[in-house]
């Protein structure tokens, strides 16, 4: 194969992997966007919610016999769905007990509108979750291995004229499809249902929403619960390809924030594309940089976006009062 063909193959492969990985990142980011975008709450523990989702999925898969019932391949995905209600409840409780003390109208008198209190509180929650998980589950790496994660579809898109071989990892493809389906479902919820519209209204203007008879506190709680569950499911999907430990959350927190900020705060769809873009950037950065610096690249992206174009690609320019 000529150098040119190798280059084409590398680029296309990176593109494919980038899109597949990006779809999953997009889903994670959408979970964060529900929280950060709608409530403007900085949830530092978002990555750890994801981690909890991974463990929840793992236990649903193995412990509750889902694997036995649905088989090793589909079972993983069923487990992801099965873990979701538990994560919804978890998010609901966390908001009710702790988060709402540092958000909303209560924060009018606090320093920087309660932002610092939010960061500090969620930092505390993150520490408890990470280290608590370590105590409960140990520090060993585990994963939800399915036979699909090591199989791939091989395609020669250009036929015999150009022998370029592209691989589509089966597990990743299924994950990406699942993510896409989840995003579409969420999008329909936000755009079409009354609940979704009340969430958007509460995000646009909390006071006016109250004048409409919408209970903004409750709306925020629902958004928080959904955001937790979506990110947690994304974690469960991630676990089908990568091993994880209690500290996995930290790596992905910055990816999530970078994606949300890149897509534009306040835009759920933007967050998805932001996550997708981050996935692509991460893959393509391997062309020039060693793998360990991939995450450093994402930091740099984050800092650049925040400094040069804080409203992101799709963000609303109007800062909500």
């Amino acid at each position, binding site marked *: 194969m000529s150098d040119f063909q190798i280059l084409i193959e590398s680029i296309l492969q990176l593109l494919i992997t980038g899109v597949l990985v990006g779809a999953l990142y997009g889903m994670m980011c959408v979970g964060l966007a529900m929280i950060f975008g709608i409530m403007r709450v900085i949830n530092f523990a978002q990555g750890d919610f994801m981690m909890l989702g991974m463990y929840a999925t793992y236990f649903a898969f193995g412990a509750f016999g889902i694997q036995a019932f649905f088989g090793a391949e589909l079972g993983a995905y069923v487990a992801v769905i099965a873990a979701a209600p538990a994560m919804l409840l978890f998010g609901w409780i966390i908001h009710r007990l702790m988060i709402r003390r540092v958000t909303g109208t209560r924060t009018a008198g606090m320093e920087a509108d309660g932002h610092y209190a939010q960061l500090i509180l969620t930092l505390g929650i993150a520490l408890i979750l990470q280290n608590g998980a370590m105590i409960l589950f140990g520090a060993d790496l585990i994963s939800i291995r399915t036979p699909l994660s090591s199989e791939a579809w091989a395609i020669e898109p250009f036929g015999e004229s150009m022998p370029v071989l592209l691989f589509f990892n089966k597990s990743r493809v299924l994950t990406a499809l699942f993510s896409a389906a989840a995003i579409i479902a969420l999008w329909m919820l936000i755009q079409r249902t009354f609940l979704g519209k009340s969430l958007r209204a509460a995000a*646009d203007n909390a*006071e006016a929403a109250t004048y409409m008879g919408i209970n903004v506190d409750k709306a925020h709680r629902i958004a928080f619960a959904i955001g937790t569950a979506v990110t947690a499911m994304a974690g469960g999907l991630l676990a089908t390809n990568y091993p994880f430990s209690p500290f996995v959350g930290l790596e992905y927190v910055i990816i999530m924030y970078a994606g949300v900020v890149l897509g534009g705060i306040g835009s759920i769809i933007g967050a998805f594309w932001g996550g997708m873009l981050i996935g692509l950037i991460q893959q393509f950065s391997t062309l020039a940089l060693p793998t360990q610096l991939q995450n450093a690249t994402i930091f740099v992206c984050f800092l650049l976006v925040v400094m040069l174009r804080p409203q992101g690609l799709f963000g609303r320019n109007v800062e909500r009062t």
Partner: protein
Amino acid sequence: MLEIEDITAGYSSSIAVLHGISIRIGQGQFISVVGPNGAGKTTLFKAISGTIPLRGGRIRYEGQDISNLEPSRRPHLGIAHVPEGRQVFPSMTVLENLEMGAATEKGRQEWKQNLERIYTWFPVLKERAGQHAGTLSGGQQQMLAIGRGLASSPKVLMLDEPSMGLAPSIADLVFEKMIEIRRDIGLSILLVEQRVAEALQFADRGYVLETGRIVLEGDGERLKADDRVRQAYLGM
């Protein structure tokens, strides 16, 4: 129907903005509240809606004491608040904004009729039903805000400075519509306005607020010609 009895309210525990305000709005009445900036007019509306707490006094609605009622419950009773500065939901369409207005129980029941009537009063909203509210002009947003308030099937409509920031001709138009609506459905209206003559002209009763107190009240027609109103605004 809506009785504000001797209320004291403010934004923080040490500063009271309103001192001992009493206002009565009867069935189908048009009440205007005027006064200079900082007098507490918007604060009054927020106290009625419950977004700031009362520190003294009571608010009664249809005989019930609602002073401690959760703010998001009050619209369901029939108190609609069209806030200062329109405050439409900018990222949502005109129709979606109106749908949000119909979030109350009664509003949902009567949605179809209400929507038809709103479109009749404000044809421009029908034309632009799919447009994002943030891109509408000031006057159109004001009409949307009023339509949104009406969509809740209210018994009392509170309007906070609807003419603010609008060109005089547009403000006139909005005002005319308001009179028309009132005639059509016999709504009670509580209006806060900068344009004093217009506010007092059609009002059954007018109140002049200054530094958180009512300094003048009376028949709309008579207040219109009272120089003390000018003094309340300009100090001398």
